[in-house]
């Protein structure tokens, strides 16, 4: 996909002994967006923009392919209450979002809402270091003619354009990783010092052997712990108290946590979100008024981007294009709204609204704040993407449908969600799927019907686990479970009936 970027000047930071002015050039090829204000906390703003810059240029791939290609310039979204900067790393692994409420600025002049790309130059990182809280710091976003240039004669100002040919994998990675935030992660609060201790340990020790995972240990009525492999080094997160059922969630991409090393020392607290084994995990650093979100896919050259993996995990609801359009129009009118409000105003079931919002997030047209559940309009690109072409129907779904329709799925057990406090709030099923040979399959669907965990004995699963989404057998089992729930609700059996069955809570 080719994206045209045009700027009428380079982003500039002019710093004197009494004032500094940061002027981010905005893409002329998009609807004008402008904002101007005095930054109230320049030090925090500097640290967070520097972290965003670090994320953009970060590339932890071992091979050189495309290492120094700068992908899409980051986008800025100006809303009536917040300002957002978003970027996806070159190595297709990390998504960063900096959100600043408008009260972090003393607004000067008119604000034009919308989303646009900003010229975030390589040199900006060094220039940002000139920001100081002792100086009046002006921040502006906009194209030419927006305010008067402070740079004077001889400063580098020139119209320039470039076309970025975005690799499909990068684009799909960006869309999928940012939409991971809409998948109802399990959230908990951690102290910055604890997260920094984890980082420090990784920086100070070279892992001697595989595996290099990071495990979240969730034990009932105990604080949450992080375990670093292969040392099995445990870090207990102060102030956390887990009340659910025992879980162990193993994630990858921990080296990229270093992207937070400049943010965590200034953070008041960190909200950690985990989706499941091998799935993206994220960290929301609350830094004064600001929030810095880092989503780590766990993979370089994101394997998720090869398929439509998130679609396969998301709740399955009938595709209603008209409803998606209606939700989009609602967001365009209101800019931001929680799911419940949209459902109430459109008179549609929450599940369908959720599916529509997920579609919008995945299409780059909306984003979500997982801590507040607020969805926002945000057009990543000037023109809507051809999502059907970008994410064609996964062949695994077709195979699953065939297996199901040909009666190759034998449900052995369905366990309803445990209604007791702290019990498993998920439906679990065990099945045997015959596809040339028999495969034992386990699936777990959470209360939103998202596929939260699964296991299969087939080679695809053996090789990828869930790293490329569920296999056809898992999907076929899910179809069978859904059909069974629709037709024979009495089919389910109570909790505890799975004595001797494999413990699905051990997600490693």
């Amino acid at each position, binding site marked *: 996909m080719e994206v045209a970027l045009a700027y009428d000047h380079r982003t500039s930071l002019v710093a004197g002994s009494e004032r500094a002015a940061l002027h981010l050039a905005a893409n002329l090829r998009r609807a004008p967006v402008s904002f101007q204000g005095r930054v109230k906390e320049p030090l925090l703003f500097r640290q967070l923009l520097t972290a965003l810059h670090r994320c953009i240029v970060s590339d932890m791939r071992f091979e050189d392919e495309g290492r120094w290609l700068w992908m899409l310039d980051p986008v800025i979204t100006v809303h009536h209450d917040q300002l957002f900067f978003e970027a996806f790393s070159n190595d297709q692994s990390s998504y960063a979002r900096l959100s600043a409420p408008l009260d972090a600025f003393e607004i000067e002049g008119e604000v034009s809402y919308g989303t646009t790309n900003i010229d975030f130059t390589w040199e900006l990182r060094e220039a940002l270091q000139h920001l100081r809280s002792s100086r009046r710091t002006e921040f502006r976003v906009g194209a030419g003619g927006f305010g008067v240039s402070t740079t004077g004669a001889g400063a580098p100002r020139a119209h320039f354009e470039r076309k970025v040919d975005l690799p499909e994998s990068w684009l799909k990675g960006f869309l999928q990783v940012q939409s991971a935030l809409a998948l109802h992660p399990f959230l908990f609060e951690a102290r910055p010092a604890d997260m920094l201790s984890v980082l420090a340990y990784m920086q100070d020790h070279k892992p001697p052997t595989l595996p290099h995972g990071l495990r979240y240990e969730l034990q009932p009525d105990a604080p949450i712990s992080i375990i670093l492999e292969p040392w099995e080094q445990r870090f207990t997160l102060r102030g956390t108290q887990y009340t659910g059922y025992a879980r162990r969630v193993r994630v990858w991409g921990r080296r990229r946590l270093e992207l937070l090393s400049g943010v965590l020392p*200034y953070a008041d607290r960190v909200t950690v979100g985990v989706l499941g084994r091998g799935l993206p995990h994220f960290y929301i650093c609350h830094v004064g008024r600001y929030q810095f979100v880092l989503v780590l896919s766990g993979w370089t050259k994101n394997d998720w981007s090869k398929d439509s993996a998130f679609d396969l995990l998301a709740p399955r609801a009938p595709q209603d294009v008209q409803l998606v359009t209606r939700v989009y129009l609602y967001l365009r009118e209101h800019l931001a709204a929680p799911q419940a409000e949209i459902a109430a105003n459109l008179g549609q079931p929450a599940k369908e609204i959720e599916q529509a919002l997920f579609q919008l997030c995945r299409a780059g047209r909306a984003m979500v704040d997982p801590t507040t559940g607020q969805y926002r309009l945000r057009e990543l690109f000037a023109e809507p993407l051809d999502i059907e072409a970008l994410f064609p129907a996964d062949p695994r779904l077709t195979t699953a449908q065939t297996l199901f329709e040909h009666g190759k799925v034998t449900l052995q057990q369905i366990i309803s969600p445990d209604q007791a406090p702290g019990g498993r709030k998920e439906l679990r099923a065990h099945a045997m799927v015959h596809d040339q040979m028999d495969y034992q399959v386990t699936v777990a669907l959470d209360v939103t019907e998202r596929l939260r965990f699964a296991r299969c004995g087939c080679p695809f699963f053996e090789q990828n686990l869930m790293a490329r989404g569920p296999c056809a057998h898992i999907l076929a089992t899910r179809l069978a479970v859904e059909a069974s729930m629709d037709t024979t609700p009495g089919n389910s059996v109570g909790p505890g009936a799975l004595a001797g069955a494999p413990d699905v809570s051990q997600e490693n």
Partner: protein
Amino acid sequence: MAGISADLRTQIHAVLASPLDRSALLRQMSALAEHDAFRTHADLWAPALFQRAAPFFEPFLLRYLDARQEATIRALLPQAEAAGHDTLFNGLYQKIAREDAWNAELLVLARSHQTDEQVLRAIQRREMERSWFTMTEVVALTLYRRNPALFAAFIRRHIRHRWGQRSQGFEHLLQAIQQQGDDELYWALFRQLAGSDEWKRSIRQVLRARTPASAILEEVRRRHAEHIWDADTSVLIDVLERYGIVVIPYIEEHLGWIAQRGSAERLLSVVSRLGDEALYWRFYCKTRDWVQWNGTLRELLKRPISDSELALALEIRTPPSGWRWQWWRLESDVALSFYRRNPDLFRPMLERFATREPDLTLFHEAEQRGDEELLDTLSFRLMEAMQGLIYSAYPPPSTQRWRKPHNESQQRLAEYGALLTRRFDRLYARSPQIYLRHAASIMSRFQAFRVWSFQKNLAYNPAFRYLFWQHRAAWRQSSEGMRDLLESPNIYVQILGLEILAEGATDAAPRVIENLPLLRALLLGRAKLSTKRKALGCLQQAALQGNPFASQILPVLEEALHFQGKRAIDERLMVAFVRLRKQLAAEQNAS
């Protein structure tokens, strides 16, 4: 040594024979793999792990098998291929493949009686990522003739440029592709293989064919040879001359290459005739050096035009920011002329280009005008230059056997030092606040890691010494000054701030509280232990000044106390924390 290896083999044997589940087996094998000799026993563990669960152990097999275990790999390859473990097959295959054998294998497959789809899968399993492997013409031609549509993409990926190789070596293939009418593949291979003569001939053909202007850009782009560096590019200037502005995007993309070998002069002359001044100067900056640029600016300064007209003309002649122009500078006379013409209007230009070398003429001129803003920039540049002089003026003892102290450098150091310290005294005499503002402004310009040797600067750099030692009480009085020091990205500037705070008592406590987030970040971050101790010292000192300070400092210590790692000062923090809590409790009890 042999004993250790035999022992290892026994251990591997035992682990493989034990009834472990595969995750536990992987952990055990990973631990054994730490031994240097582990790989030499690949004949034992590799087939066993492959049989146990090839997909699960694939990463392990790929990590620990290498070309030295060729026999083991060769034994595994047919099994992996038969079982359809394609990624494992490909990973192992690449470890032992040799270019001639690879080509021979592809040729056998290309001539085999299998279906085209089977052949495609088989050759895809032999996909080669090594950029120096290239397919021979006979292999490519056989595959192409077999099924052009199916094998085109594979051929395109695997015919790669090789130095000294010419496209004539592939002329039969290119002819076959042309006959097939597969333009896309033809030009893709042309771009890979064309030498400078073929490329030039091809561009000349475009000119002769009187290609319409609407198609010229695409025509030159599709012919752009990717591996020629020293071609006679004048043919492209002919294209530019004939087609004008429509080919500019291509010319600009490859300007460095096109302007080589003396073509720059003619190129600029053709571009100037296009009448786009911005374009001309953009090309000028990319093809000329800074000495020529200064000459152009001298000419510009002679023109009888107003300041605003001059500013406009200068703007268009100024290179954008970027590494290419990082060493461009204004020569002294040019810088002075701009400064005298209009200091405010041309300040950004001067700050960017006039300060890259110490320019005392400009410094004195700015002093006469009382232009302290520009003097800050010039002072910083002088200090940077002094850092470089220190090494020649006072070489380290270890190098003094062959490097004598350089007298001229010593004199320049003294001269610059006197100039700067005189300025600092003058500023302080005006008022401590003015001195602090400008001193902070100078110190702020030190980027992270810019002070090469802190101790040497302190010993031999008079200006640095002045900033470090003088007027510390004034610093503590200044909220803005202290913030500037502590918020510097340069750790030495931060240390200066900490030293100043640590010396103080009642006057330092408010500054500590103002900078609590920063001090907390220092304690939690990657700063050295000595720096953290300094930061802790400042916090302790401030806490002693009364409970209003102590109560704000206590939560910071508590958070930092939980930071673990080699850079944690937890014991000292614990002591400080306990003392502080006692202090607060005693105060509460007393009240």
